[in-house]
């Protein structure tokens, strides 16, 4: 009885994900497509929860559903408003074909993965991580893998984020801010923002021994900035002048600095000294959180904010 119940739930979640994806692609207006995409993110987060992966569920809920949804809605606002409500054409058949091919590929890959899981030959990665966990400086295996065993990958991810940010900054000045909001939004934002910030700090701190970490915390912090801007306040909490540039680079920069500094003892790149590992990981995560939050807010703004060229003694455009 118990096995059947959860299997039914899993099949429901899988069916909902596929249905949402198809509906979002064939939606006859972008606004509705975006809402379907956001709900898709919600169902995916639940699927991750069912797969016993709370870290990924947190990241999906925060980034994949929340911040990405807000980003898409903001991009939609920029489109020139059309006088008549002309129904949107479907995506071109080429786009649909490629999309369905990719979905087919993903399903094949999933089958291959499940098939591989059935053969228990050789050492399993999970067991290897658990064996080395005590030396990694943290108690959460996901954080250990991200920030220690595979730290190089995370460093490159932050570099990719920085590259994307540079692309967005090259687009020109930021989008215009929404007008000042009425009392409902203002008061909602007034308590939502501190709650988002505190939860971000909590996720950053707890990431050492429980699901959490820099990416989730950074996304929540970015959501705080986004929500402040949506309430009509043009100031998103970003610093100005040279500080905002330093903040954007800080994630990648501190990571690289720590990695290079670890080499001074004769070790390899990013091979932290064993008793400092926990502290170094926390240091990297703090700056990664700030950098991710700043990058996501700048991407949401869609260009260079007004404070980009002002403030600071060494400000340059």
């Amino acid at each position: 009885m118990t096995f059947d119940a959860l299997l039914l739930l899993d099949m429901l979640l899988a069916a909902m994900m596929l249905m949402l994806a198809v509906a979002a692609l064939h939606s006859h207006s972008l606004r509705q497509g975006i809402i379907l995409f956001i709900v898709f993110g919600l169902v995916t987060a639940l699927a991750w929860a069912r797969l016993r992966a709370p870290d990924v569920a947190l990241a999906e809920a925060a980034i994949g559903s929340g911040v990405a949804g807000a980003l898409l809605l903001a991009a939609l606002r920029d489109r020139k408003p059309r006088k008549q409500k002309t129904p949107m054409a479907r995506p071109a058949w080429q786009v649909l074909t490629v999309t369905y091919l990719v979905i087919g590929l993903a399903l094949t890959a999933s089958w291959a993965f499940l098939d591989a899981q059935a053969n228990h030959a050789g050492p399993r990665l999970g067991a290897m991580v658990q064996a080395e966990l005590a030396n990694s400086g943290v108690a959460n295996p996901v954080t250990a893998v991200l920030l220690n065993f595979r730290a190089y990958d995370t460093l490159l991810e932050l570099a990719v984020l920085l590259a994307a940010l540079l692309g967005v900054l090259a687009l020109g000045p930021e989008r215009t801010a929404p007008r000042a909001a009425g009392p409902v939004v203002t008061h909602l934002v007034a308590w939502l923002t501190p709650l988002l910030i505190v939860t971000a700090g909590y996720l950053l701190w707890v990431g050492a021994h429980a699901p959490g970490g820099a990416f989730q915390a950074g996304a929540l912090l970015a959501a705080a900035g986004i929500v402040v801007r949506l309430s009509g306040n043009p100031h998103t909490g970003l610093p100005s002048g040279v500080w905002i540039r330093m903040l954007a680079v800080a994630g990648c920069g501190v990571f690289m600095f720590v990695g290079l500094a670890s080499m001074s003892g004769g070790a390899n790149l990013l091979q932290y000294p064993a008793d400092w590992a926990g502290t170094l990981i926390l240091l990297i995560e703090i700056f990664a959180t700030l950098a991710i939050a700043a990058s996501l807010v700048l991407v949401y703004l869609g260009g260079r904010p007004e404070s980009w060229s002002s403030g600071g003694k060494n400000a340059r455009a």
Partner: protein
Amino acid sequence: MGELLLIASVTLGLNLALSLLAMLRQPAASDRMLSAQLLGTNGVGLMLLLSLAQDQAALVDAALVLALLAAVVVIAFTRRAPEGSHD
């Protein structure tokens, strides 16, 4: 208790699926947004049930993040472009 949690999870899952079908049938964007809000609350409840059923306290954090971002998304949806009306 464990059995009840599992049955409850499936019930909420079915509820989620039904709400989703109802949402897909609605033509208007506002209807879809309010359905999305219902789905969000539904998802939060399901996440909490799963946290207890699978004995993973971290899923409570996931439910909190879901609830927070649901609020953010509703604000993002209802704020119109500058040439729109106030609020």
